[in-house]
């Protein structure tokens, strides 16, 4: 038995009238972890974060912080500072006054307030802007002010609501490094809401994927990437090939699924353990496991597809293809390999993968 988690959502749900924003959910957040909650807009991720901050009251269930029920604690009595998407810096206060704000609210004396604020200004490398008006700072500097303002009270947990979405791509990557380092050095819990897969997967220890108010999967980034548990997650991540079909055979540690694109084999994983021949099943292969070749390989899973387009994604390229049943397929390849294959749109090509590369999910 591990120790009590820092935050526990126990059947916590939220409705606005008839609309269910968050279905009753269980979620445990551990001390010192970087947890990302990810999903498209309207999936309930921000509502979840706001319930933890006390800005929204759950309509059912219980939220516990360090073992204590906090449902009825107003936000100004919780220690759950938040970094807002718009940053919400106070435009009528200077940078230092912004950082001092929550210390002043707690009645910390003037000298101590200043000393503690200055320590954070220094740590965030914004000391030189201490007496500036926040409106006169750049996006990255404002970000640092927002972080300093939330962290100045040295809370156990920091909530972040898409804090990087207003920054340009270059600055985003730099701020990701700042956030990751900060979280590691402070050892406090970060709960980070985002719709960006790259932000969530590059920073978080664990990722929660939400859809339509439900948690679809919780796990380490690699684990989710390698073995999405639901068809939604596989499609949401966008880097998998997904085939819907029916179980043809399940025996001896292997499973075979019959799909319009062919019959494919995979190891019998725990998710597919209960499947029987005839059941609906979904076959998933990650795009970096796909081989492309001009002729049918001798063994393994294979299908013939039509090349649609190539997409340049930095060190590699993604080839978009269409399967025999009209499936949207993809394969990630190095530029060298693509140069050898010399593909052009309209070409037929064989896609194949080893039996261990795919996995099977229950349901269509």
């Amino acid at each position, binding site marked *: 038995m591990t120790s009590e988690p820092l935050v526990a959502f126990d059947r916590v749900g939220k409705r606005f009238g008839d609309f269910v924003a968050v279905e009753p959910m269980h979620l445990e957040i551990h001390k010192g972890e970087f947890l990302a909650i990810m999903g498209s807009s309207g999936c309930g991720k921000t509502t979840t974060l706001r319930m933890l901050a006390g800005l929204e009251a759950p309509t059912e269930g219980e939220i516990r912080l360090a073992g204590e029920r906090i449902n009825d604690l107003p936000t100004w009595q919780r220690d759950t*500072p938040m970094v807002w998407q718009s940053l919400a810096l106070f435009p009528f206060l200077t940078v230092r006054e912004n950082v001092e704000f*929550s210390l002043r*609210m707690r009645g910390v004396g003037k000298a101590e307030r200043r000393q503690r604020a200055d320590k954070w200004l220094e740590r965030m490398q914004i000391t030189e802007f201490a007496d*500036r008006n926040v409106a006169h700072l750049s996006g990255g500097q404002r970000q640092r002010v927002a972080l300093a303002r939330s962290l100045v*009270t040295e809370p156990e947990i920091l909530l972040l609501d898409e804090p990087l979405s207003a920054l340009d791509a270059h600055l985003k990557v730099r701020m990701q490094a700042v956030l990751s380092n900060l979280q590691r050095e402070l050892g406090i819990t970060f709960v980070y809401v985002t719709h960006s897969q790259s932000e969530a997967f590059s920073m978080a220890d664990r990722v929660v994927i939400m859809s339509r108010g439900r948690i679809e999967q919780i796990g380490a980034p690699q684990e989710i990437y390698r073995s999405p548990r639901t068809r939604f997650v596989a499609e949401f991540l966008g880097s998998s090939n997904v085939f819907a079909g029916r179980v043809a055979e399940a025996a001896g540690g292997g499973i075979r699924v019959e799909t319009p694109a062919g019959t494919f084999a995979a190891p019998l994983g725990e998710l597919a353990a209960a499947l029987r021949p005839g059941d609906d099943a979904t076959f998933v292969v990650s795009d970096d496991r796909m081989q492309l070749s001009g002729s049918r390989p001798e063994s393994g899973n294979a299908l013939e597809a039509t090349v649609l387009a190539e997409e340049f994604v930095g060190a590699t390229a993604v080839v978009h293809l269409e399967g025999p049943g009209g499936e949207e397929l993809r394969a990630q390849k190095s530029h060298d390999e693509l140069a050898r294959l010399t593909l052009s749109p309209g070409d037929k090509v064989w896609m194949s993968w080893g039996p261990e590369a795919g996995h099977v999910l229950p349901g269509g």
Partner: protein
Amino acid sequence: MTASDRSGLAAGPVPARREMPGQARPAGAPAPGRARKTVSLYGLTFSLPMLLWQMIFFLAPLLFLVALSFWSVRNFRMEPDFNPDNWSRMLGRSVFWEAYLRTLLLSATAAIVTSAVAFPASYAIAFKLSETARRWAIFLMVIPFFTSYLVRVYSWQIFLSDNGIINALLAKIGLGPFPMLNSNFGTMVGYLTLCLPLVILLQLFSLIFVDRTLVEAAHNLRCGRLRTVFEVVVPAARVGLTIAALFCFILTFGDFVSPLYLGGGDPPTLSILITDTTKSGQQWPRAAVVALVMIATLLVIAFAAVRFAYKERGR
């Protein structure tokens, strides 16, 4: 033509500047996208009627008022002159300075009292009412303007006089009568009648635009509900709140109706002093002196208020 000449001439619209990360705009540098200095002929054509109107009906009379303040009055007739006597006579009289101080205090009190009375109402309308209810509230705030201010002030006499409605009701429970008419209290009731709906509307329109996230951010940083009003809502709406108070000050500073019909007019305010001066021996030039002092005072107050409203914290 030298190169620098040409570069000066070529200063057309500058493309929107991208801020580089890690580099702040130097303090005092012009904000990107500020309008060019040159006035376009097109814009001028459209503003011409307004400009002409202001010249004919504001600037010209003002200049005439200045000239008038130096005229002489002989045998109840005004004669063009350059006579600084009017100024020294008026400014040398304690009656004038008493009236000046009194008017200043009354208007300042009115601005503070009206703002304080209006704020809870405009706060509630802006933050607590639904969209539909807010529209109704704004509509209701406009209705008082349907009736003439003079009529509304007269109707207050029925309520406030010694045998008026309020004292009659108080008498039933054995209280009073309280003298309410012909006092500063009466004047203040009139001033509120004049300003309250307007001040509520002006406050409301600035409170509606206060970013709600700032309020949530304050709560999240341990600022309780009531404290947030003073720590965040008031500072964030400072421009609108100050302008609303300024309007109240300006309207009451020149008002003649309330201090006369509800305040009794004695001792006089500056506007009452003006009418008294014109009535006593056709002293229009001396009345002009009072009017000019009032205009100068309002200019100073308005300038200071606008400066305060837009003052930024920090560099």
